[in-house]
């Protein structure tokens, strides 16, 4: 039976793992993911979920156990954050390289020593080069839905990629919003049991991918990621058809009709930005919002298609890449994607919400004002703007 109630992101994620019928969950607690795994432990203990929950002694082990279990034919779910993701880095290379469709929640938390427990996206973005699909969720509902979609995309025999379902610690993980949990039988009809065609460890049926050169393997991985763009969009549409909720695939344009100035956000701040856009539009401002849901594979083609509609595009980076070519990680990828587009918009880059500070409506409004100014004047005031350095008259 499907049901709806207020649910924190970590609980919604647990229900996602349960509905997906994850068979092996090797996990190690870390704030702000902890409730996710204790929720799974509870679901297993009370018989709601049937899975092997391995209480590993560290994240490095968690991902290795995940790899072993996935190769051995089990559907695997795990989760981590920040320092834990960094600790399992060595193992994080394995699933994409071996093409194992593990789904992992990356509950975003800033990296130490330059922050505490609150969210920014540096932790998951740090892992962007490995070959994981990365989808960024705005609320509890999207987390649950994206986990199911993650398995469907990842286990597609033409794809075979691991999926990182990323969501902000605290702002999503520990904030309750209305969440609909679909009916298990309906999910079972939509998501078949896991069967990897390339691997078997059963004696007598031993199977491993055929030997290839390392270059061939890398090209194969890159091709799979490129193919996954269509798969992500198709699965999203299919999920919407079946369960009534969709997320526009990799990029969503929100209230962008005739917009001159748009900002691009990732994660929970998107929810706040939606409200700001609506308010400013009511006041007659030509603003719009682009939600980047998929960071990997980077939606280059889609961005190249939609960006020329706008005069100025501001990328909001809730992350740091110290010493970079210019600004945050997302803005640099956007700049690269749009480099060859002749009528590309002016590009602005804002750092906000770093180390998990709140992203306020006033800050978003400030970003829109700057972007509108750029659209009007044809000039960008600051190439990279750390919004928190400005006193906007708020108590932060």
């Amino acid at each position, binding site marked *: 039976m499907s049901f709806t109630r207020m649910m924190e992101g970590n609980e919604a994620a647990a229900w996602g793992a349960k509905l997906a019928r994850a*068979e*092996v969950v*090797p996990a190690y607690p870390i704030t702000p993911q902890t409730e996710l795994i204790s929720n799974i432990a509870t679901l297993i203990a009370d018989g709601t979920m049937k*899975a*092997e929950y*391995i*209480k*590993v*002694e*560290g994240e*490095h*082990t968690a991902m*290795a*156990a*995940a*790899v*072993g*279990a*996935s*190769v*051995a*034919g*089990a559907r*695997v779910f795990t989760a981590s954050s920040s320092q834990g993701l960094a600790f399992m880095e*060595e*193992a994080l290379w*394995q699933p994409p390289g071996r093409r194992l469709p593990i789904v992992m929640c990356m509950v975003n938390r800033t990296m130490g020593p330059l922050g505490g427990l609150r969210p920014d996206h540096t932790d998951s973005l740090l892992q962007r080069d490995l070959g994981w699909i990365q989808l960024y969720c705005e609320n509890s509902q999207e987390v649950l839905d994206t986990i199911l979609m993650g398995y469907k995309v990842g286990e597609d025999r033409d794809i075979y990629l691991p999926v990182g379902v990323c969501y902000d610690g605290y702002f999503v993980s520990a904030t309750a919003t209305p969440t609909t949990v679909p009916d298990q039988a309906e999910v079972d009809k939509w998501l078949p049991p896991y069967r990897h065609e390339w691997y*078997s*460890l*059963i*004696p*007598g049926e*031993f199977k*491993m991918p055929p030997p290839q050169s390392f270059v061939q393997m890398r090209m194969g991985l890159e091709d799979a990621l490129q193919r996954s763009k269509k798969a992500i969009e198709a699965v999203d549409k299919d999920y919407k058809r079946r369960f009534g909720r969709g997320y526009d695939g990799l990029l969503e344009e929100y209230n962008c009709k005739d917009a001159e100035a748009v900002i691009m956000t990732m994660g929970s701040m998107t929810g706040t930005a939606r409200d700001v856009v609506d308010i400013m539009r009511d006041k007659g401002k030509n603003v719009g919002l682009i939600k980047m849901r998929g960071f990997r594979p980077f939606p280059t083609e889609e961005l190249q298609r939609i960006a020329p509609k706008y005069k100025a595009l501001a990328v909001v980076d809730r992350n740091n890449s110290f010493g970079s070519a210019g600004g945050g990680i997302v803005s640099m990828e956007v700049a690269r994607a749009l480099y060859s587009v002749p009528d590309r918009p002016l590009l602005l880059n804002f750092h906000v919400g770093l180390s998990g500070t709140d992203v306020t409506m006033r800050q978003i409004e400030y970003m829109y004002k700057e972007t509108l100014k750029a659209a009007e004047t044809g000039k960008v005031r600051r190439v990279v703007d750390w919004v928190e350095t400005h006193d906007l008259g708020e108590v932060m």
Partner: protein
Amino acid sequence: MISEKFDRRYSDILIQGGTQCCPGCGGPLFWKLALEALGPETIVYGDGPCAMCALRSIKVPFFAIHFSFIADGATGISAAMRAKGREDITIVSSGGDGATGDISLGKVSAAAERNENIIQVCIDNEAYMNTGIQKSGLTPYGAWTTTTPAGKESNKKDVPLIIAAHKVPYVATASVAYPRDLQAKLRKAKEIKGFKYIHTVIPCPTGWRFDPAKSVEVTRLGVDTWTWPLYEIEKGVLKMSRKPEQKPVTEYLKAQGRFRGLKELQVEHIQAEVDARRKNLIAQDGKSLTI
């Protein structure tokens, strides 16, 4: 035809002859013996020792990640087999001394604590041989390696005892020089549910510096001098597998180039340590080791 006979044999013994290991390496010998004891319903997981070159030749399902993940992948494989109702398949997790005793010691300890239903084997050639003979925590005192050219200053880490302290069902030491004993221990481990640990010191002609033909002979000397005593710890109770007439430790040391630099005082120290250990083992034989 002889080659046909052998091709059939390699299928039977579950390992292809002609591994990439050095001539005389104890690694392939270990796996040849082990797979005969364990049989085909086995999955081997592991990485690390250059003895692993032998693992590329085995004919049972095999999977490896890196040597920093010893016991981890096996934990995942074991969970998957439980999920699929195939707990009848024996899962062996393999690591060298560097893997099991150093970089993955925490992993092995955790798997022991969780009482994972696997046989963890340590194939100990007493140094990081794969990367060109560097010291590991299990390199014996006084041994030459490229990172201890004047001889290792510290003692060999006693990993079997560390694992026994986790109160796992079965811990054993073994030697390729005593193959039937090794095989009996593996067969016993196969029938026990829970975490089993079997530690075998294997000869390395390349790293220990001796004529490959002497591989088994040197290994036998290790046991007969009580440098590498053979025992089991089953449910916490110590049981000596052999109590050989003790040969002086110099016989073992002189047979290997890696101990050539030892001074008189150091040899005496080694003999004293071996004697003390032997005394303790004999005193504890048949008794519970757990506190």
